[in-house]
Every structure is written in structure tokens, then in C-alpha cells.
């Protein structure tokens, strides 16, 4: 638990800041930059930096406003309902759960509201400044209200400890998602007249209803430690976050949770596996049917727990995935001859959700999450909230080495965790390759990617595992245990792609004595734009998406327990500030309309592109403290705009 060992004080932060030099160069410049920063109210740099990055995400503020609008309407409606029920029928078993849910949603809405307020306030401030530039203006705001709201949603942020910016981001995004899903679900249940008129019928891409989450909250073994509980409290937080790459013993809190889970099951699960699955499995496993609740729910739960149990007995395959394969019966067999054909022709259970797949051209993975396939969900959505900026989907493809057929499974993600550090074993492999006879190099057309590039990291991320030796894969077409390859492909890329560099991951021998997690300072070159085709499914490839670096949250300092977060944001220049939200992306503004701005709490400075690049890519040798990119925000550039 990283957060427990963070004790950096603000004074330290101040020192570090001065050492970076950049800010100091920026400070004396007058007039001030017309950008509003956040005050650091006690180790809140993680919050400040993430908020800044989010604020400049195209459309984020709009989405926020929309969700707020619809959410509050929903909340009013719902709480009235509950009151009514309360009066009528006190024996309703649902009531408590409903209340709890409403509380939860209202807490989240409060957080979103605060965020929105602060953003609005900042924009007004900036507008004012542009109209009346004055060096005396207080160009920073206090994020206290946001922080308070955040703490009610997620108690882990209580106190003024240092926190992981990525955890915060996950928490924020998943809260947003939770509200979206909850509302969407209700709208589907024929309450659209209760909602407002501008609801249009959109089939949602998120078949996971928060009903599942509700039931997941059922109960968990008392032995779960705090972090696990947190995971249960906001299952979606863990769920939306995928972690791939070599099993480097990543020690972010959630990861260790999963490691614990896998150990308990003791069947050789890899840390590469979808965290979400293991979390969910775990939760289902320890779930106990609650009596006295809605009988329907009870049956559902029972079915689930039984299913899982049976599953453990029956399966020979050691990975969670294969277990889920069996559970879901959602395997897809796609013969190599027709990789595009008929994949969507799946039968029953996901029902209407599936139509979204069919609506989309080409190869769409049908294996949406159907664990809780009990109720088919048609989701009617408000235009604004149907849009998920950060959510994309990945396809996990398992290919039999014998017959080349493959099965697929689809997963949603909100950020991508990529490794920055090559494993020891691989290094050894490299050495071995180097000492081989020189004749080889003549023939070779080596395509391996050099370590330290984002390309390499993404390749590591998508490269799954090979199922060999005693962990062979049972191919349904060969009816035989065969070797298989498992890898990830992007199926649907989000408008904003968040790449998380796994810098705080520790190999067992590198634990520092204080218990803090050391930071991997490996250089990872951050490209200003990136193309994703090579890691995409065919349908996704055809879109030829290019991604433009939009903001970077970087971390300075040598370990998890000390350091400081900064954010670099690419913002539209001065006059574009007032239209920053939705308009900026659509209107074809020339590139030089943007500039890079460094937000260091309340200190704001503008950078040229060169300056920025040298900062994030650690080109200048002189830097004593490691200012290393930690979260990368890439936003999609439409192809027309690109060329």
C-alpha cells in the first residue's frame, strides 16, 4: 500500500520544483500565462495534475456536463420513487440496496459536479484574465471541494498523503462510467418518459450493467485486506484497468491484490491476465447468497456461485480465461479461411446488446462480457452520455497452433498499462543472441523493437502468452490439447487513449528498506503522435487512427514515497482558450495554435515544442531528478485532419 508510506512534505516539493529549473525560468516571465493552476493543499499534486490533464481532454467538460444533467434528473426521480415505496411497502427487500445505490450515485454526482464547477470557474477566470490581464490576478484555484467530494466517493484519498495519479484517474473515470451505466440501465427499463425528452435511442456499448456491480458488492471474505475491500467498493475501478506486460511483480495496490487472488487459486495464473476477471471471480467466489433479498437476485447469485464452483472442478485449464471460456460458452471459432465472416452469429444470451456489434462494420468481437447474461439490456441513452471518451475495447485472441483457428474475447479498458522495463530473462536472451556467430546478422532482417520506445511497450502489452508444456490449450476444433498463442488486439480505440507507464513496479529484490516501491526510471521515448494499426483488429485497422499526444502527467522523484507530479498539457493558444472544450477539436486550427503548458500546481509556464520534448524524453543530461512521464494522454486525430 503505497499510500501509507508517503510522507513527502510540501517543502520538499518546493525544493524539487526549484531544482527542475523550468518553472523558475517560467516564473519571472510577465505577464503571467493565462492558464489557471491548482493550489497544492497538501500533497494534492496527484489530483492537480490529473485534473489539468482531464480538463484539456477534448469534450471531457461537455461529457461531464451532460452526465451531470441527466444524472441529477435520474437521481431526483429515483429518490422520489424510493420515498414512495418506503411509504407503501416496508417489506420491500430491494429498498435498502436501492438506497445504498442512490447514495453511491449521488456521491459520485457530487464529485462530478465539483469537478465541473471548478472547471467552469477556471474558464471564467481565464476569460477574465484575457480581457483584463493583470499581474496581480490570483491565477490558481483551490481544489479542496473536489478533493472532499472525491473522498466521499473513495475513502482511500482521505488524509493528505501522497497518492498515485493513475489510481486517481482510474477512480475518476470509473465513477463517471458507473453513473453512465447505472443511468443507462434504468432508461432501458422503460422509464424513459420519466426522463427528459432528449433521450434518443442509442444502443450502448457497455453491456455490463451496474446491476452486476451491485451484486458483486454482496460480500467478501473477512480476510480481505483494505485494498481488496476498496476494490469491492468500486469494482469498476479495478475492472476498467488492464495490466499487461511481463509479470514483473508490479506492485501497485490492485496488482498485488490480484496476485493474492491467483496465489489462492494456486493454478499458475499469470499476472498478465485480465485483472478484472480475477477480481470478479474472486468476488463471486466469496459471495454468499443473501437471504431475505429479492428472490430473483438470489437465484441469480446462486446460479453464479454454483457455476463458478462447477467450473473449478471441471476445467483442466489452469488460467482464469479458460475457466471463463467454459463458463461463458462464448467461444468463437474462426477458421483462418474466413477471418471476417460470421463471427457475430452468436446465439442467445447477450441479446440486444449484441446489436451494437452487428451495427458496426467488419470484425467486431462478439464476446462481450456476458458473465451476467441474465438480463439482456437494451440501453437507451442520452446523446451526451453515450459517448465514452476513454473507453475502448480489446480483443483477446487465442490461436491454436495446430489448426490456426482462434477464439476471441472482448474486454473494455479505460487505460493501458504498459511496461517500461525489460525483464531479466529477456535481457539474457538478447545477450545470447548477440554472441551467436556473425554469419547470422548478415541474413537477419531484425524487426525487433528497441526497448524504451512506446512501440516496444505496446508490443509487450499486446503480446500475451504462449500456452505450452503443461499449460496447453484445449482446442475445440482439434479436440486436443494443443499449443496456443494468446495476444491482444485493439478492437475499438477510444477518443482519448490513456497510457500508463508501469514505473512503480518492483522486482522482489529491489524493495527499498523503507517499504516504498522504487521507481523504474528507464527512459521511454514518448512520441508526439502514434499510429495503432499494428495492434488492431482488421475493422479497427481500417480506420487508420492516428493519435496525438495531448497531455502528459509526469512524476519527479526517485520512489513512490517521494516525488511530485507535474502535467504538461497541449492547449490551444490564448484566444482559443474560451472555446477550449468541444470546438477546439472540430475547428481546423493550424497546429501552431497550440502550445505546451506545464502545470506544476499553481505554477504555470508555457513551453515550446522543443523544450517540451527535451523535458519528457529526458534529453537534457543535466536533470538531476527524474522527471519521467507517467501517464500519457493521446487523443484521436481524424484522418482528414491528419493530412
Amino acid at each position, binding site marked *: 500500500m503505497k499510500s501509507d508510506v508517503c510522507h513527502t512534505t510540501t517543502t520538499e516539493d518546493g525544493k524539487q520544483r526549484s531544482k527542475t529549473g523550468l518553472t523558475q525560468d517560467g516564473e519571472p516571465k510577465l505577464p503571467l500565462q493565462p492558464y489557471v493552476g491548482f493550489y497544492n493543499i497538501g500533497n494534492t499534486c496527484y489530483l492537480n495534475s490529473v485534473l489539468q490533464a482531464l480538463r484539456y481532454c477534448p469534450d471531457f467538460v461537455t461529457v461531464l456536463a451532460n452526465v451531470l444533467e441527466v444524472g441529477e434528473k435520474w437521481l431526483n426521480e429515483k429518490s422520489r420513487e424510493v420515498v414512495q415505496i418506503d411509504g407503501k411497502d416496508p417489506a420491500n427487500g430491494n429498498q435498502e440496496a436501492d438506497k445504498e445505490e442512490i447514495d453511491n450515485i449521488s456521491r459520485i454526482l457530487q464529485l462530478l459536479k465539483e469537478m465541473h464547477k471548478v472547471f467552469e470557474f477556471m474558464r471564467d477566470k481565464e476569460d477574465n484574465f484575457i480581457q483584463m490581464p493583470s499581474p496581480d490576478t490570483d491565477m490558481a484555484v483551490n481544489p479542496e471541494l473536489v478533493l472532499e467530494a472525491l473522498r466521499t466517493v473513495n475513502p482511500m484519498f482521505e488524509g493528505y498523503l501522497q497518492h498515485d495519479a493513475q489510481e486517481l484517474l482510474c477512480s475518476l473515470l470509473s465513477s463517471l462510467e458507473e453513473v453512465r451505466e447505472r443511468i443507462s440501465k434504468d432508461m432501458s427499463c422503460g422509464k424513459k418518459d420519466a426522463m427528459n425528452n432528449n433521450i434518443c435511442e442509442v444502443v450502448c456499448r457497455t453491456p455490463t450493467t451496474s446491476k452486476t456491480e451491485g451484486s458483486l458488492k454482496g460480500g467478501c471474505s473477512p480476510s480481505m485486506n483494505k485494498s481488496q475491500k476498496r476494490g469491492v467498493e468500486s469494482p469498476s475501478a479495478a475492472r476498467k484497468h488492464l495490466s499487461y506486460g511481463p509479470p514483473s511483480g508490479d506492485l501497485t495496490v490492485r496488482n498485488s491484490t490480484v496476485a493474492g487472488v491467483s496465489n489462492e487459486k494456486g493454478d499458475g495464473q499469470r499476472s498478465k491476465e485480465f485483472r478484472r476477471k480475477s477480481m470478479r471471480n474472486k468476488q463471486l467466489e466469496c459471495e454468499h447468497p443473501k437471504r431475505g433479498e429479492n428472490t430473483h437476485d438470489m437465484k441469480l447469485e446462486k446460479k453464479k456461485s454454483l457455476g463458478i464452483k462447477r467450473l473449478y472442478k471441471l476445467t483442466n485449464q489452469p488460467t482464469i480465461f479458460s475457466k471463463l471460456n467454459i463458463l461463458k460458452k462464448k467461444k468463437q471459432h474462426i477458421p*483462418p479461411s474466413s477471418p471476417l465472416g460470421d463471427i457475430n452469429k452468436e446465439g442467445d444470451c447477450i441479446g440486444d446488446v449484441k446489436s451494437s456489434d452487428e451495427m458496426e462494420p467488419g470484425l467486431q468481437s462478439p464476446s462481450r462480457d456476458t458473465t451476467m447474461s441474465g438480463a439482456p439490456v437494451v440501453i437507451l441513452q442520452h446523446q451526451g452520455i453515450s459517448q465514452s471518451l476513454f473507453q475502448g475495447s480489446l480483443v483477446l485472441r487465442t490461436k491454436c*497452433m495446430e489448426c490456426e483457428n482462434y477464439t476471441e474475447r472482448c474486454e473494455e479498458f479505460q487505460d493501458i498499462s504498459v511496461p517500461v522495463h525489460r525483464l531479466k530473462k529477456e535481457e539474457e536472451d538478447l545477450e545470447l543472441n548477440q554472441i551467436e*556467430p556473425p554469419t547470422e546478422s548478415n541474413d537477419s532482417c531484425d524487426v525487433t523493437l528497441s526497448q524504451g520506445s512506446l512501440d516496444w511497450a505496446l508490443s509487450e502489452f499486446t503480446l500475451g502468452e504462449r500456452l505450452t*508444456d503443461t499449460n496447453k490449450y484445449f482446442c475445440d476444433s482439434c479436440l*486436443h490439447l494443443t499449443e496456443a498463442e494468446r495476444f491482444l488486439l485493439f478492437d475499438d480505440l477510444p477518443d482519448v487513449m490513456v497510457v500508463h507507464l508501469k514505473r512503480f513496479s518492483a522486482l522482489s529484490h529491489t524493495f527499498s528498506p523503507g517499504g516504498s516501491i522504487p521507481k523504474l526510471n528507464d527512459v521511454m521515448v514518448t512520441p508526439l503522435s502514434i499510429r495503432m*494499426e499494428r495492434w488492431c483488429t482488421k475493422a479497427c485497422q481500417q480506420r487508420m487512427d492516428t493519435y496525438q499526444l495531448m497531455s502528459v502527467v509526469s512524476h519527479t522523484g526517485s520512489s513512490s514515497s517521494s516525488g511530485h507530479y507535474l502535467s504538461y498539457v497541449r492547449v490551444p493558444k490564448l484566444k482559443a482558450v474560451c472555446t477550449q472544450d468541444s470546438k477546439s477539436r472540430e475547428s481546423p486550427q493550424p497546429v501552431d495554435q497550440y502550445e505546451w503548458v506545464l502545470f506544476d500546481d499553481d505554477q504555470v509556464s508555457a513551453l515550446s515544442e522543443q523544450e517540451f520534448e527535451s523535458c519528457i524524453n529526458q534529453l537534457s543530461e543535466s536533470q538531476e531528478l527524474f522527471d519521467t512521464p507517467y501517464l500519457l494522454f493521446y487523443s484521436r486525430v481524424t484522418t482528414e485532419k491528419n493530412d
Partner: protein
Amino acid sequence: MVSYVLRNEVEREHRSGVNCMQYDPLMNRLYSGGRDSIVRIWNLNSMNDPYVLSMEHHTDWVNDTVLCCGGRTLISASSDTTVKVWNAHKGFCMSTLRTHKDYVKALAYAKDKEHVASGGLDRQIFLWDVNTLTALTATNNTVTTSSFNGQKDSIYSLAMNPSGTVLISGSTEKVLRVWDPRTCAKIMKLKGHTDNVKSVIVNKDATQVMVVEPTEVHSELQRPRVGCLGPLCQRFIHSVLFRREDCRIFQTDPRFPESSILVCNTDSPVLRMELGADQEELWVATVKSDLKCWDIKESIHRKSGDYETISSGPLLSRPKETIKGGSSIRQLSILNDKRHILTLDSDQNVALWDAVTATQVKDLGKVDFQDEVKKRFKMVYVPNWFTVDLKIGTRQIVFLPGCRPRRSALESQTNQKQRTRSKLIQAGLGLQAASLEPGTLLSFCGQLNKNSFHQNNLPNELWRVGFESLLEHWPNAHSYDPDSVIPRTENGIDTKTDDIKVSFGSSNPSTPPEHRRHDTLIVKGNRYFSMPGHTPVIFGEAGGRTLFRFLCRDAGGESERLLLKDSVPAWVLDVAVDNQVPKFNKITFFLQPYVQPGNKSVKKDKLSANDMLQIKKVQEHVYKNFMGQSDSSISGSSTLSRRSSEPSEKGEEDQTEIAMEKVELLCQDQVLEPNSDLRTVKHFIWKSAADLELHYRSKVQNGTSVNDSDEKSNSSWRTAFSR
């Protein structure tokens, strides 16, 4: 791991895909190694009935074969991790090479030197001298082999030139590694492949290598290339080369790779191609079991200039010859009784099999598989005791080792009684063995005739009966029946007299001394049925490697007897030789009076019983204890089973019937069937891991009287069960 295969006595047709073929021009024979683990010999001179014989010894897919020594020796590589050397003319296995640790995927043959290389998923390549291999005898059976080190990934293809100077291996590493088999040294690595190298051939002087790798969807953007999946068939490397693109076969001149001719279309993905007579025939094996021969005389004489004029249709529309293959099982369902298996084969035929007797019960023809499964659903819960493996296209029953009894289970000194008891369990085959306490023995015998073998709903001891019949020809497994009270029963199973008198000199020393009685009847097998003698029995390691395979009927043979002794797992010995019975599972449950939903019942009595205890026994218990029956005789006993065992068996049966009339039990508000047992109730009705809760009420719908008696009996109930 013990498994046996359900099959016909002679399997004349391939059951599944055919992985490899070898043509013998001298004899005009074709050797085909199939996924059904059998290498078959086909006589191509008589195409009406080409089957010559089957070479059966492998226990998993045969992946590759080479024909050496001018057609006298066949070497086969299999997924059972072995390489076997066969006398190709007579069709028997001469030796088995067990150096590989995983599937052996590929063989390569250097004709001039009579060397064979084998490579597999264990990343190992071994080089064998065929002449040494064929000279092996039982006494002189050490082979030295050369191995090649440095391979990092699973090997899927191997090629060697005839003079044995170059060995090329293709693997999932996406590089070709080239070795010198004479020194076992690495020569070089050929990089640039993007996928697993599935097939590789090399020309005579090792100057050119031809490689096939499957195209991969996600790599298409970077490298558009002609997709070829699967095997190559080499004619002369400079003139014609056949390759497969999924279900089509192309002929390509390697010098002009853009000009290919579509020779023919096949109905399913091609696994192997082999040139037949005069190199004018092309034998094609696919994932289906048919072997087809295409006449390529015409196509190979085409000049390269003709290539442009070729239209899109295939050159050949129909194969010249077809060797028909059989159907393979594609899907199966183990029925709830954990005894019968429904299978669906590739011809859509549905059949019902009996796993215990290893025979087909009924061929249901072309009916809907799922319907049949539903039709045969029985409300009975029996724990799994076997799995079925379809990998060789036929049913292979695998005993679940989890079912094995613990050795300590019944080694107490009251052995005699228990032995009799276990005999009875075995005899009753699924009668409620759990209710069998010594006192109930006679009643049990009485029931034996009433309940025929097939009607019994809970064949708990099936697996052990299965063992006994699997090993029935093995003298060590013959059991001694001290009392010989039980005659071989009806049950439609022939009463073949195989009770023989044997002197005890050679018998198994592990038998406890008290069981050694001279002049008693020696009983073979399980008295009820015998497995078909042709049933292959396989002992394997937990990981799946085969230790020993024999046919059921051969277990009594000289060498098998010895080998068996070494390879039989200890837990099998416990069952088949020492007649040990596994411990019964206890189940705990609560028994409460039935109350209307809404009212809370306060008392909860926790009971424990064998999970096979029938509901009617619980009813009887309720009747005796709560319905005003005399309970003085049973106070103090602490378990249900002992209690039920105390009255005389006649009276007990009567009581049971009375109880069944008067009392009914409910679980989840559902009235329970008297003949179902606790584990079935728990599995199908309770559906939870928590302790089972049963409610009882009087069948006479007189609520008040029942409740009264409840109150009365409650105290005695408490005393009976509290400690």
C-alpha cells in the same frame, strides 16, 4: 492416470484427420498415420478393399512418419511423446523411444545415411541411426542419440537433405535454425519469418529451403504474402511444388512464384500431401478421415508459359481414388448417472455408450443430440469419476484420480466384516451403499434380487467395478471370495464361468495374510460383466505421458504380467487387488419441522450422514423420532446410519414403508422423492454450498397434530443427538 478406449474390435477406417502419409513404391502401399493414434497400411493394388492392417501402439495423434530401409522400417512420431519403430511389412512395433518430453511433431530422414531426426514441442531434436534402432532387442536396448542444443521454442517442422549434411528446424521462434547433423553444431539462423514455421523442405544439395508459415491476420498490413498453411509436397524442388492454401492445392514453380495453378479443391483443410505412384498421383490427407488421390499427370507436364492462360477453376474436379474414412466423435455428454455417455459423431449420428462395460448400448441414428441429452436427464447426482477424451476421435475414458480411495480407508482389523460388506457393495452396484452397516447386510442381500443392475440409480462403485473388469485377465487382480455366498447374478451379463482354482504360490504378496485362504474360489473381474477383450487400457503419468498400454485381454500374458506389476499405480492396486473401498463422504444437514413461510423456525438440529443416504431413510428417522413412535431403543446412538441399522431388517423395511406413507420431506419448499439421496437433493434442489436444510411434515394434512407430536418428540430428539 488410467484410461481405456471404447472402440470396435477392428477399426478399419481412420476415425479422424490423417496427419501423415508415406508411400512405398516397391510394395505400392500407403502408410497413413492418423489422429486416431493408428497407423494403417493400405494396399493400393486392390483399391476395392485396400485395408491391410492397423499398427496400433500409440495412444495419441500420430504426427509424422518416415519410411526407411527401403520400406522395411517405419518410424512414427506421436503426441504421446514417443517415437516408435515398426516393422513396416509385418506391422508390429519393434521399439519405443521415450526421449522426448512433449508431443513429437516432426521427423526428418536422410536417406543416404539412414538417419532420422525427431523434433517436438519439448524443444529437443534427437538424431537417430535407423540401423541401430532396428537392431535393438529386449536385452540390448540402449540407444545413443545425438541431440541438438539451443533451440528455444517448440519445433513444428524438420527437414534433412538425403546426404544428411544439413538439418533445418522450423519453430514458433519464427526463425529457421540450420544445423550440421554430423557435428550437431549450429550453422546459422534464418530470420525474417513472422509466424510459426509449419512446414519446411530442403533440396538435395541443401542449397534451397522452402518454408511454409501460416499467414496471420494481424500481420497482413506489413507483409502481404501468399498465404500458405500447412504442408508442402516436394517434387523436384526446381520444377514443381505443391502447396496448400487452406482448402485448395496449388502447383507452383518456385522460380516463378507468382504463377501458380490451382490443382484442386478439397473439402477441408489439408494436413498432408504425398506423391504416389510414378509421382503422377498426389495423395491428400485432410482433417477429415478420407484419403484422396488426385491424378496430377497432366498438370505436371504444363510448361511455365501456360500459366498465364489458366482460368480460375481448379484443374481437377474429382479425385481419382478415395480411401473412405470413418466418422469421429465430435461431441459428447456424460449423463447424470455418470455411467452412460451420449456421443455425436461427424456424420451426425448419435449413440449411447456404457462407460462401465465399454460397449455401445444403442445407436440412435441421426437424431438431435441436445434433445437426446435432455431426454435422458435423470434427477440423480453422482460425483464425477471419469472424464472422456475425444482426442483420438473415439471415446477414451479417463479415470479421475481424485476418485481414488485413500489407502487408510479400510485397513482396520475388523477387516473381515468390511470385506464382506465391500463385496456386497460391489454386488449391489449402486444400491444405497451408504446405508450398509453390518447390521443391514441381510436386508441388502434381499434387495439384491429385486433391484437389477440396470435399474440402480446410483452406481457409486462403478469406477471400481470398471477397474476390476479392466484388469480381470491379470492374475494379480483376481480376488478371493471367502464366503462365495453370492452367485453370479442375472442382469443380462453372461455367467461365463471364470471362477478357477489356483494355487497360491504366485499370487500377489501384497494381499493381507488373513485373506490368503487356500482352496477358495478365485474370482476374476467383478462377476458381472467383462470388458471387451480388445479394449486398450492405458496407464499414464498425471501429465499425460503414457507409461504402458495393453489390451484388456492381454493382461495375463507373460510380459504384460511383469510390465503391469511395474506400472500399475498404487491406488489401482488398492482397488483391484486389495478390494478397498473409498471412504464415504459425509454430508451435514439440518432437519426442521416444516413451517409456513414467514414464521421463523427456531430449532435447528445439525445432523450428519453419508451423502448417499436415501430420503426415505430420513423419513423413517423422522417417523420414528417425531411421530410418536417408540424411541427408547435408539436413544444414545449418535448417527442416523447406526440407528437405522439396529432394528431387524424385516421390521426396518416395514417401518420405512410406513414412514414413507406418513411423512414427507421438503427442501426449498419442494417435496422430495423418497428414492433420491442426500447428495442429489443437495445438488439439484438445495443448490448451495451451505449446509442442506430439510423440512419434514406429516403427509396427513392435519397440521395441529403434527405440530403437537413435534413438540413432544423434540426433547427426545435433542437427547438423541446432543453429546
